[in-house]
């Protein structure tokens, strides 16, 4: 497996480098994400330091660790929203210089948007055809609710809209922050199915999760050594 965990010498009591466990059921082709000695600081807290790992095409990495260890921070750094303190992040070149697909804690829907209007706008903004939207709505189980504004949607329904976005725009790297939360059993099965398909098509996934999904990760990146 392609992965180096460098446990650097640290000044701080807390900083002990990201602990990374690796399981061996992957099929690696292209390096999609390469992280090299990454350090994250928020406020006065060092979250992690000297983090190294590589994510290849077809691989699913699970990001684990107790609350507040920096999972969201890491995902947002990779997406490019937060600057790293030190270290480098190399991402694969996405189509048309877009960023990776990011599914955060927030659902990204404004109160008066409906699933249909949101996905239509999403398709337009990303130069994707609108014609797939009905099928996608069907797939995430929102056909009957497609005209309901977001403030009337249930928590799970909003999450499903967020998932549907991934189907409209093909991107190699998916960054998912607790993707299973608010989803019912069927929704979680759907999530795993979508993830599986994405991996089969050569994509890569880094997902922060607390509970195991049905899909077994190829690597487990545990930030919990700091807790």
């Amino acid at each position: 497996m392609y992965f180096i965990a460098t446990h650097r010498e640290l000044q701080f009591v807390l900083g002990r480098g990201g602990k990374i466990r690796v399981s061996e059921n992957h099929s690696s082709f292209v390096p999609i994400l390469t992280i090299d000695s990454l350090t994250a600081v928020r406020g006065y807290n060092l979250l992690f330091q000297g983090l190294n790992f590589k994510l290849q095409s077809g691989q699913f990495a699970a990001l684990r660790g107790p609350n507040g260890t920096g999972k969201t921070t890491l995902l947002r750094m990779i997406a490019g929203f937060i600057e790293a303190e030190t270290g480098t992040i190399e991402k694969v070149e996405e189509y048309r210089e877009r960023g990776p697909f990011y599914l955060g804690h927030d659902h990204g829907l404004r109160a008066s948007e409906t699933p249909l209007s949101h996905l239509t706008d999403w398709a337009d903004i990303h130069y994707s055809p609108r014609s797939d939207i009905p099928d996608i709505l069907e797939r995430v189980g929102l056909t009957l609710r497609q005209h309901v504004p977001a403030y009337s949607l249930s928590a799970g329904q909003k999450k499903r809209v967020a998932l549907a976005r991934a189907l409209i725009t093909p991107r190699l790297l998916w960054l998912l922050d607790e993707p299973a939360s608010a989803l019912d059993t069927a929704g979680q099965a759907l999530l795993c199915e979508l993830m599986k398909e994405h991996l089969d098509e050569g994509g890569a996934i880094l997902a922060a999760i607390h509970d195991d999904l049905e899909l077994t990760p190829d690597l487990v990146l545990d930030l919990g050594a700091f807790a």
Partner: protein
Amino acid sequence: MMRNGVAAIFRRELSLAWAGGSGLFLPAAFFAGTIFLAPLGIGPEPRLLAASAPGLIFVALCLASLTTLERIFQADLEVGALDHHRLSGLSMELATLAKVAAHWLVSGLPIALLTPVAAVMMRAETVTLQSILPVFLGSITIFLWGGIGASLTAGLRRSGPLVALLILPLFVPVVIFGAEELNHVLTGQGFGAGLGLLAANSLAALAISPFAMSLALKLE
């Protein structure tokens, strides 16, 4: 090609502004409301009203723009939609410009078109359709500067009148030149020298504002 995605953002913002309770007539109504309150306070004396009309119209425009602008970026930021715009590969400069343009279309333009009515209510001497132009140009500038303030406060994740405080100084030249120009028109002197300055100001705002906005929104 780029045009497409930016146009989609423009359309989205337009329909959200519409559906979100700030439909076409609402900011205009806010403007009308201010123009309606002011004479009640100032008193019915026609000369006094006419003299303060251009100033009041521009101040009312500034304040009406603030009420809508404040929420443009903040609403997107709160639900995480701004993240997606940043990953969409579109230039953030054009995307923010599209947002401001949509809001201007829904809120700024109707105000400009209402100027003659406001002038009548403020007992101006000569009310012609010419009076629309200074407010039209001024509203473009005010919305663009206002967008900078809104993006700064959104990045700070704080609501409240901070945005107003930040951008009021930027409104100064618009208010001065705009009111002077409007005064020219409303006293029957036609357009004056200020029109070119107003237009230049709009262009400057158009050149600066998108970069400032996209930079401000990248603050984490």
